[in-house]
């Protein structure tokens, strides 16, 4: 707040300085006129000196208008001063009321400006900037999240899973030495099986975050792996040369995974073809099958995929006419 008060004080100081200098000049002119006589020409000097002050004052007032109307107010203030000036000149010189043209001209411009402002009611540029910032920060957050999830996956692998494996190993060794105590051996075997189950659950959890092969080898290998795991026959054609950012890679992977699961569920006799392609700034993933078609685009799995894709400003299109198979196409921007 302090600096603002300062500028205000400076402004009023500056204004009074101008006023006093102009007053002095005007006074000298009047004295000269009084000594020399003739028409009262200092009126023109007064007009010339008043003009900048009038402009400054009115524009300054106009700038106080709400942001949305500020440009219009400044234009109005400027027009008002110029019209006033014209009327003043006309009053001094007489003749037909020519300032009407100025009034009409400026009035028209103001009206146009006002119409444009009301037709485009949003602070468009502000919104554009805001969207820009949000896009960047959201993408940043998603990137951080993807990196964080991969770290968690690695931590699970190196930490909890490794310890459970070591535990199950020790239990196994203990079990081997309990031949003479079968009931204790049975207990130890139960404990070992529990440890194995826990390892299995951790493995499923880690795979749900990001399958290791995706982090290790990239999208193409991970999709290849999905095809091998799938209950249906899957062919793959890939034309990607560099690795997209992890967050895009993961989204692309889950698009393929979910789509293939859907095909296997609804068209177990179909075969599917996966295409991965790079277009400038975009990763394109297409999964087509020769099943019966007729998939609902808003079906459970698909709407989840759409959300995942839209979070990255991508698009997901589903074409599934009955009898023509299904094509799912996702486009993911990657800079």
């Amino acid at each position, binding site marked *: 707040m302090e600096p603002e008060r300062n500028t205000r004080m400076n402004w009023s100081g500056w204004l009074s300085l101008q006023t006093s200098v102009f007053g002095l000049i005007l006074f000298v002119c009047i004295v000269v006129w009084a000594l020399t006589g003739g028409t009262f020409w200092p009126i023109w000097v007064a007009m010339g000196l008043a003009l900048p002050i009038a402009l400054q004052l009115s524009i300054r007032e106009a700038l106080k208008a709400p942001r949305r109307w500020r440009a219009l107010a400044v234009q109005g203030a400027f027009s008002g001063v110029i019209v006033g000036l014209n009327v003043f000149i006309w009053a001094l010189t007489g003749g037909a009321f020519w300032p009407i043209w100025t009034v009409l001209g400026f009035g028209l411009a103001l009206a146009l400006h006002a119409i444009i402002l009301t037709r485009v009611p949003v602070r468009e540029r502000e919104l554009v900037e805001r969207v820009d910032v949000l896009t960047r920060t959201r993408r940043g957050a998603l990137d951080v999240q993807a990196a964080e999830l991969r770290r968690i996956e690695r931590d699970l692998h190196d930490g909890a899973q490794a310890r459970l494996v070591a535990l199950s190993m020790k239990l196994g060794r203990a079990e081997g030495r309990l031949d003479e105590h079968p009931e204790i051996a049975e207990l130890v075997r139960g404990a070992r099986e529990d440890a194995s189950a826990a390892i299995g659950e951790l493995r499923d959890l880690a795979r749900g975050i990001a399958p290791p*092969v995706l982090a290790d080898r990239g999208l193409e290998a991970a999709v290849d792996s999905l095809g*091998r795991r799938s209950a249906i026959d899957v062919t793959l054609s890939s034309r990607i040369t560099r690795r997209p950012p992890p967050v895009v890679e993961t989204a692309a992977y889950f698009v393929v995974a979910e789509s293939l699961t859907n095909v296997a569920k609804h068209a177990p006799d179909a075969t599917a073809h996966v295409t991965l392609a790079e277009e400038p700034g975009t990763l394109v993933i297409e999964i087509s099958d020769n099943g019966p078609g007729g998939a609902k685009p808003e079906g459970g799995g698909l709407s989840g995929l759409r959300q995942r894709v839209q979070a990255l400003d991508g698009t997901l299109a589903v074409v599934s006419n009955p009898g023509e198979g299904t094509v799912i196409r996702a486009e993911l921007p990657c800079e």
Partner: protein
Amino acid sequence: MRVVIAEDQALLREGIVALLREQHIDVVAQAEDGEGLLRIVGGHKPDLAIVDVRLPPTFTDEGIRAAMQARSQFPGLGVLILSQYVEPVYTAELLDSDGEGGVGYLLKERVGDVKGFVASVRRVADGGTALDREVVKELVRNRHTGDEGALGSLTPREHEVLALMAEGRTNAAIARAMVVTPGAVEKHISNIFGKLDLPATDDDHRRVLAVLTFLRASG
């Protein structure tokens, strides 16, 4: 039997070493990364290398790459991969890799089943296969559709026998698992050998070939 081991996590490495020594299997050297594996395999000429998939420096698939390199470089070396997860891409690469020695791919928690694990270790060292049942399950699931070639002519029952063979089970174990007599298993197996056109030479070798045909077909 002489074994080397490449595993970066000391906890697991030492556990496996202790377990194998208790079973009178000689662990002659240990490594913590892929380069180290190649070095100790070259230096000690072991029968078998037990390798973790994820090794430094990349912590991705370093282990499997190093293991495949070692397998092609040192004829007769068996390679047993230990992994925290099943990955068909890796098992397929492993089975397709050059080399004459045995191959195995087991989930790490199988180490806890000491008897089973030691049997797998011995089998792979002797040139056989030991595929985790999870690996086989994924591969078998894929085989139910789009059968082609010789494998397509197998009956579901023969498929089942072949899958159990891929896990490395003996005829007696397969018979128990399928609740049939060992004689019935032998009959299935000879049918499989016939359909896959495997010459009647050494039985063990044919067994490996049948399994490899089966597994490669799923790749």
